[in-house]
């Protein structure tokens, strides 16, 4: 029997009325890779922030190597041998790698001897785990994958025996994920214990030996990874059986309804972000646009939806030019022509989060009948419409008067989707439809998009989730550095092939 290196018993934690962790007990064995899986808001990150000393539990105990510890701050946790790689990196972008790593552990008031020692130790660590990091590079010059390695190196330098990684693969290309997993395995071989927090079932199956499933702040179960499968884990996460494969009817392709010719778009800083892009979308087809975040997808989507000026080239809807160098139709006109847009950043562009749900449900159509008569909003109509839509789209809670920010990410997304889909658009532009959305809602949103396609809409799906692009699209284009670097018909194409294109290697 291996003794647990980290043991949590009966942890409770509330934020206001929300109980984020409820009687959570968990044991993690030394030298293993332990997965913690659950939907967004299941309490995984809160639990690990408690272990890292960032939050304090309301009740319950934490033991390390059998001794109960009192972790009042990250300092205590670090000294107990716990390291954490946060989902959003805790790095100072204009500092060097070295400065970031020694921050808080300088060991001397004025830099000198200890700094040289630190450099030597870090070089050794880099060597041992093949991290291949230049200590003098500035963080903002590093790719996301390397920044993550800096975080790992930082934790190791601070003496971590237990390394917690919170959703480490969300921002990585498939190749970078491979590299990360290699590093994690070599850490395990050196005797380190790794806790992997994720909502991706594949990662659990690939990497871990034990897995703990969380649901709504509670432990839904512990499993040995070898003795379980994805379907079982998904069911434990959601509390009911989930369709992991999407049922898609065969493609019924119609005419080209949306076309982009030699499009160039600049961003706010006047940098060319979309470079000579061409594609077209047919009726009844989903075109997936894959790519690592920040390769021009955002600017492209903004130009297509009429909120960003086109530098050169043109965009055509039903053979009519809607946007070129000299003029472009605004989103209101585009809506009337049958184009709908689900923006990437729903909180910033899709919703006014401190408005009520019913206001967001009609926003953009609020001036139309029956919501508005002689420029005055008709509250009763809006309310009855909202109730109906919230029921159709399974928005929870069904409270039209609730402020939108109080809904979960998935339900906020359903509010936008219902608004944009209810008008039966001919062309639908969708950006990151399931970012930060839980697995149950993902299933629902995907099904709605497929339904739209089957009804004959032309859909552009922009997503950094490769799995999503692969499972929904009929055809896939990959964007890298502002250019379309590849196009694949989605039959027998693998995530490896797309991944290489996403990384700009082709």
């Amino acid at each position, binding site marked *: 029997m291996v003794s647990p290196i980290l043991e949590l018993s009966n942890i409770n934690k509330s934020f206001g009325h929300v109980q984020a962790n409820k009687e959570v007990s968990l044991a993690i064995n030394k030298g293993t890779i332990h997965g913690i899986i659950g939907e967004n808001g299941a309490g995984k*990150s*809160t639990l690990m*922030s408690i272990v*890292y*000393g*960032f*939050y304090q539990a309301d009740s319950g105990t934490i033991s390390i190597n059998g001794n109960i510890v009192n972790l009042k*701050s*990250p*300092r*205590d*946790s*670090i000294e107990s041998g716990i390291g*954490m790689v*946060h989902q*959003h990196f*805790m*790095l*100072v*972008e*204009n*500092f060097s790698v070295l*400065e*970031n790593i*020694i*921050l*808080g*552990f*300088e060991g*001397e*008031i*004025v*830099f000198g001897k200890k700094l040289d020692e630190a450099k030597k130790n870090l070089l050794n660590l880099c060597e041992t785990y093949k991290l291949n990091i230049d200590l003098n590079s500035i963080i903002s010059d590093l790719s996301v994958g390397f920044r993550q390695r800096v975080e790992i190196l930082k934790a190791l330098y601070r003496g971590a025996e237990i390394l917690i990684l919170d959703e480490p693969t969300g921002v990585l290309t498939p190749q970078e994920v491979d590299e990360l997993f290699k590093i994690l395995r070599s850490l395990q071989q050196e005797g380190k214990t790794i806790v992997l927090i994720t909502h991706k079932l594949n990662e659990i199956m690939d990497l871990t030996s034990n897995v703990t499933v969380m649901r709504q702040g509670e432990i839904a179960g512990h499993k040995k990874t070898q003795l379980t499968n994805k379907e079982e884990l998904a069911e434990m996460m959601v509390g009911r059986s989930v369709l992991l494969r999407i049922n898609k009817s065969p493609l019924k392709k119609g005419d080209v309804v949306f076309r982009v010719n030699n499009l160039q778009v600049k961003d706010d800083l006047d940098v060319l972000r979309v470079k000579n892009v061409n594609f077209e979308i047919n009726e009844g087809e989903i075109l997936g646009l894959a790519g690592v975040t920040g390769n021009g997808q955002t600017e492209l989507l903004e130009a297509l939806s009429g909120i960003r000026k086109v530098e050169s080239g043109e965009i055509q809807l039903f053979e009519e030019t809607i946007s070129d160098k000299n003029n472009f139709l605004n989103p209101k006109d585009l809506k009337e022509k049958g184009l709908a847009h689900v923006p990437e950043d729903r909180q910033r562009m899709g919703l006014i989060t401190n408005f009520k749900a019913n206001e967001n449900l009609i926003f953009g159509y609020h001036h139309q009948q029956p919501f508005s008569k002689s420029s005055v909003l008709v509250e009763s109509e809006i309310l009855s419409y909202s109730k109906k839509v919230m029921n159709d789209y399974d928005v929870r809670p069904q409270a039209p008067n609730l402020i939108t920010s109080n809904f979960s990410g998935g339900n906020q997304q359903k509010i936008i989707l219902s608004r944009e889909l209810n008008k039966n658009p001919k062309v639908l532009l969708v950006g990151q439809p399931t970012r930060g959305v839980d697995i149950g809602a993902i299933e629902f949103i995907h099904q709605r998009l497929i339904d739209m396609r089957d009804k004959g809409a032309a859909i552009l799906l922009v997503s950094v989730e490769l799995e999503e692009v692969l499972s929904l699209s009929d055809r896939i284009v990959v964007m890298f550095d502002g250019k379309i670097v590849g196009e694949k018909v989605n039959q027998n194409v693998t995530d490896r092939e797309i991944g290489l294109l996403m990384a700009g290697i082709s």
Partner: protein
Amino acid sequence: MEFMSDIVSLLSATLRISTPLIFAAMAGLFAERSGVIDFGLEGKMLAAAFVAATGAYFLGSPWFGLILAIVCCVSLSLLHGFASVTHKGDQVVSCVAINILMIGLTTALAAAWFGEEGLTPTLNDDQRFFEINLPFADALRPIPILGTIYSDIISGHYIFVYIAYILVPIVYWVVFKTSFGLRLRAVGENPSAVDTAGIGVYATRYKALMINGVLVAFAGAYLSTAINANFFREMSAGRGYLALAALIFGKWHPKTALLACLLFGFTDALQIRLQGVELPIIGVIPVQFIQAIPYVLTVVLLAGFVGKAIAPRAIGQPYIKEG
């Protein structure tokens, strides 16, 4: 030869006039590098000037005045921290409150204690600082150029002037070569990184604000107990804002902020020199226009040239923990 002596007095005046700007800019640097906006330099400078003059008058020594000014400014900085760090209030509002409060309070207290609206009594020689002649200043004066620079430009200033110019490299060293400096810069860029490294974000910001209070006190005391011999109403005259402008223009870096302070000091010295002087072709420029030069320059520089100044990323944002 008149031209030469004009240049000499202009440069000497530049050093003198830049001094309070340098103290205030370095004070602002600590606050802003830690992520706390310090728009309140103006109010603190004014408070320090009043307290230093009053303290020197009652206690008989400008040094006591300076110490009281430091106590006063550190308290005001801590107040700013209490409102904007601990209670996460809006940093600009907190600063504006300090500025307005200090204008009113100094005027009212001067009226209550000395019977004169916004004036403190004139200090005698024991109660104020005196100018220092550096060693051998007289002996070296005959040496061409170098002698003039040493004896007529560098020598003969108040001690504050020398402290200010020694201060800048010290600030540089503290900010870039010590672990406190590393934490200070980190907390202004990404406080979460500091928090997860197990260092107190608030503690670091409070330390920065205390240093800020000490330094800005020197600027105020210099005004009322060195170059002037009393406090008068609103005597800081926008120098706090000018120092902040210099800090921003200098991209929150001690060396470039110093250069910006010198530039502002020089234009101010120039405008004083140009008052009433008849220029070829143009004639005498009305004094109001000339006095506006430093401020116009500030606006032009800030609007036109600092487009790329990158502020500490977390400036102005109260630190709120996220999981």
